[in-house]
């Protein structure tokens, strides 16, 4: 079975630009979460979507937004990019239930110059 797939793998953007990151969950997984991992730190929760509804939002500014599509894939959008947005953005999918482990993709490495 295919794992969680994310695209693109790498991205370089300029301050002030907008970026869209994409994620396809494991087949059968209806929950998708997004995490930001800054170099040298643990992942930090951004959003969780389940059945196309936002179920949780971390402490991130309104420049960050996301959505989930009917096929359970997801997009993370970041507007007005700042240098501090440079990070590895991880998407994770899971089955219903809090004790189901998250399955992570390999991430999108975003560099803002």
């Amino acid at each position: 079975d295919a794992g969680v797939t994310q695209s693109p793998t790498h991205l370089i953007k300029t301050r002030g630009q907008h970026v869209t990151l994409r994620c396809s969950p494991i087949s059968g997984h209806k929950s998708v979460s997004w995490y930001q991992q800054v170099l040298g730190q643990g992942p930090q929760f951004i959003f969780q979507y389940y059945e196309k509804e936002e179920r949780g939002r971390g402490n991130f500014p309104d420049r960050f937004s996301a959505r989930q599509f009917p096929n359970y894939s997801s997009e993370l959008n970041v507007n007005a990019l700042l240098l501090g947005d440079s990070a590895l953005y991880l998407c994770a999918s899971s089955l219903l239930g809090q004790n189901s482990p998250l399955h992570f993709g390999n991430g999108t490495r975003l560099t803002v110059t």
Partner: protein
Amino acid sequence: AQSVAQPEDQVNVAEGNPLTVKCTYSVSGNPYLFWYVQYPNRGLQFLLKYITGDNLVKGSYGFEAEFNKSQTSFHLKKPSALVSDSALYFCAVSPAQRAGSYQLTFGKGTKLSVIP
């Protein structure tokens, strides 16, 4: 709000020796606890979880973890380390939340180096 502390930035162990990676947590109510491993330029891979029941949890690749409620700890252990275990290890906690809601708080990670 929940939090996770991994007090060691790096742990060095000789191949064949036992290893321990430490984790303590803070959360309201009963915790759901997880360990993940990350290899360079890759996402996180699930190792094991504690939800309820036996305090000693066995996971992938020979790893196990011991839940200690009184010390709010969830240390990762392996009886005999392999060079291939060298990686970045993350402890994470999730509180009991409403159905369909799922949010993990991660520690900052511990780099494990197994020396041949």
